[in-house]
């Protein structure tokens, strides 16, 4: 349920979840998770809206949060209120076909490195790669369809002979953001002088401050030195450069050091991501293990640069999948929605023209996925401010509409998963910090961690009493059968269901990991 608190200003929204409620303060670009008990205070303010508070409802809300920090559980700041401006738009209208805004073009599969995680599995040039003329056609058609940003990638883009011509052509098609992705190992001075005049942005992949670790990931000795020299040369030609660090087994602990190292070189824009299970990244992502990259809801913008922010602003908000408005064309002409979504082709050029691909049902449907379509997230109060990467869900879980596998927030308990461990113990035991009272055979449980209250019927109350760490679920069923005439199968089924309910609500101690 979404309540607009102050429609005259359209700046504050309350979104109710199963346990918590989130307050979206669009004016400040912030999201607060509000204590359930305060929701009524805010509700009271709302109900008084036509009265004395009027336009000052906003001030009152902010007042409550600012002066009673205990009332707001935690606050997640967002770097850009622009995105949240979008929330309003997306809440109010989402109709008509979506437009193309951004294209990745993988010009070639040829690469002088052989990075352990490469999503494109780049290495040698493929025999059926698109021709130079075909890339120009794609650029032209993309511009006609509304694309204003293009990222030329590979393989290694400097191995594509027509790169400069293609960039010039993209300029003539009025693309306002052109990015060239490179490993920066083979940047000659003459090339850089040309790039400097073309007004492009360069994106460099970098892995570690430790030459050995970097080279072991690129699988080419000396690539660290070459990339560092390349970055320095790019900066000396005053070409805007950003770097992305992909974290995997070989550099998992190097993030801080690598950031500092790159900052020392003069780079200002540095992002990072954990290896994704796509291309050669599938093996690497298995090696890093399940827990890596997991955390709370991803409420921060993934792309901090001004240029990218403009791209992002064209999407209504992060609630809508991040691949909306985007298309990737591989070196062989296969279209995907994202570099990570290679298991989901949506067309092939030139058999299908770009317009047919973009306006086809597949792309249009996949572009429109919002967190309202996603399991669990659809009930989460933070969904309108959360990053919605469907490729991550698809490649990690195999389910396009599953919850972000890195998000550990459980909206149904209001807690982070892993609270009390993962999975149920062999002999379930109730959490020691819970408070419970029995009233006429029924049990009321108070959870002081999240102030939730639970109510158990008499039978669930008996099961609750037996969750003492000494009984297995089977033994609990046997105890129940001793006091209740019922079929053993049914009782076992009911006990399992009840225990699962306790577990889901975070009432049991978990297995120690």
């Amino acid at each position, binding site marked *: 349920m979404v309540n607009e608190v102050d429609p005259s200003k359209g700046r504050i929204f309350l979104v109710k979840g199963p346990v918590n409620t989130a307050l979206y303060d669009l004016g400040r670009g912030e999201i607060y998770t509000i204590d*359930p*008990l305060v929701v*009524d*205070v805010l*509700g*009271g303010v*709302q*109900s*008084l809206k*036509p*009265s*004395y*508070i*009027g336009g*000052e409802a906003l*001030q*009152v809300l902010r*007042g*409550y949060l*600012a*002066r*009673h920090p*205990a009332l707001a559980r935690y606050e997640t700041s967002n770097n850009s209120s622009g995105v949240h401006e979008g929330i309003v738009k997306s809440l109010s209208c989402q109709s008509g076909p979506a437009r193309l805004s951004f294209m990745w073009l993988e010009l070639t599969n040829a690469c002088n490195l052989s990075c352990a995680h490469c999503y494109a599995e780049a290495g040698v040039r493929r025999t059926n790669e698109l021709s130079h003329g075909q890339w120009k056609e794609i650029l032209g058609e993309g511009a006609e369809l509304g694309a204003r940003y293009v990222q030329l990638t590979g393989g290694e883009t400097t191995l594509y002979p027509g790169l400069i011509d293609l960039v010039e052509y993209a300029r003539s098609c009025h693309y306002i953001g052109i990015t060239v992705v490179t490993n920066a190992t083979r940047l000659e001075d003459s090339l850089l002088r040309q790039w400097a005049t073309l007004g492009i942005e360069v994106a460099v992949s970098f892995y570690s401050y430790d030459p050995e670790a970097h080279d072991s990931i690129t699988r080419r000795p000396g690539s660290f030195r070459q990339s560092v020299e390349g970055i320095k040369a790019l900066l000396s030609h005053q070409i805007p450069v950003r770097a992305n660090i992909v974290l995997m087994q070989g550099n998992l602990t190097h993030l801080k050091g690598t950031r500092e190292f790159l900052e020392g070189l003069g780079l200002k824009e540095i992002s990072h991501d954990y290896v994704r299970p796509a291309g050669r990244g599938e093996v690497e992502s298995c090696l890093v293990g399940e827990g890596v990259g997991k955390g709370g809801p991803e409420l921060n913008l993934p792309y901090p640069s001004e240029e990218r922010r403009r791209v992002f602003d064209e999407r209504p908000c992060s609630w809508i999948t991040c691949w909306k408005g985007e298309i990737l064309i591989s070196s062989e002409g296969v279209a995907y929605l994202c570099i990570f979504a290679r298991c989901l082709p949506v067309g092939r050029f030139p058999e299908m023209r770009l317009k047919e691909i973009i306006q086809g049902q597949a792309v249009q449907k996949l572009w429109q996925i919002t967190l309202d379509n996603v399991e669990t997230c659809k009930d989460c109060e933070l969904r309108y401010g959360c990053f919605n990467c469907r490729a991550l869900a698809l490649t990690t879980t195999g389910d396009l509409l599953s919850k972000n596998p890195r998000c550990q927030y459980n909206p149904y308990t209001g807690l982070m998963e892993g609270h009390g461990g993962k999975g149920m113990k062999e002999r379930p035991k109730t959490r020691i910090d819970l*408070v*419970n*009272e029995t*009233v*006429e055979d*029924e*049990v*009321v449980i*108070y959870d*002081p961690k999240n*102030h939730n*209250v*639970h*109510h*158990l019927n008499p039978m669930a109350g008996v099961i609750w009493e037996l969750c003492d760490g000494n009984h297995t679920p089977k033994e609990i069923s046997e105890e129940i059968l001793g006091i209740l005439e019922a079929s053993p199968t049914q009782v076992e089924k009911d006990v399992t269901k009840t225990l699962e309910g306790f577990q889901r609500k975070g009432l049991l101690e978990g297995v120690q990991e």
Partner: protein
Amino acid sequence: MTPTTALPTLNIKVLSLPIEIVTNYEPFLREFCELTPALVSPANGETPVVRFGVVQKRRYTHIEKEGRTIYRLDKDYTICPILMDEIRASCYEHVRDYLLLHAGAVVKDGRAILLPGKSESGKTTLTLGLMNCGYKYLTDEVSAIHHKTIEVAPFQRPIYVNTWSRPLRKEVNKSFKTYRYRDEGEDRWQYIVPQNGAVMPRDVRWKVDWIIFPRYTPKGKVILKPLGPAKAVMALMQRGWNQRLFTDRGLKIFTGLVRRARCYTLEMGDLEEACKLIEELVGKSA
């Protein structure tokens, strides 16, 4: 804010919370005293725990808390309501001998009815309706349950009524003073303030015999249904304002409250009929 002896200072107490209000704005002071005769009592020299300032600076009135401006208001009619809200919120933070519950409460013949519910569930309306049936006003919003005796104490803030619920005041008028608050467009709001005849003694607490959870169902039926005790405890827990200050004792207080009372839910499509049902219920058990 730097309190100076030159400025008028109000030292008051709301429940057990001593509060100081310093102001240089006479009209506010007058209005505040007119609105809160039943809510506040003299602090009797107790050191204030919370300090507010209402300071007129150029064309704005600043509401300050502990010396820090928390509101800057340009409309006079907003000062008292916002300050009263702040006082209420301060009670949630500091009052430790009362468990504060989002509930209305009325009393008759020494027996209290608690009306817990969330905003717009009909607490104020039902409170007014029952007052028309001879019940005395304890609160329409914050029921203060004493942590030891588990009895309800008055929190008699002025009742804020709008055009639609105004007819309900017809009987209440005798012991409540109507205070026209603001007329803006079609929304007409008034405060009705308990006067001497309606002010309940602040040091007397009342045993709660009935807990009725109202739910306003426009044009629906009036249905009064018993509520299981565990569910009632759960519903009360969800309506607590400051239960976290009591940690595990909060559950015990609510359980105690439910054990001593009879609990019902009330679907309230028609106020008169709803009040009649409650009267019958109370009459039967008497």
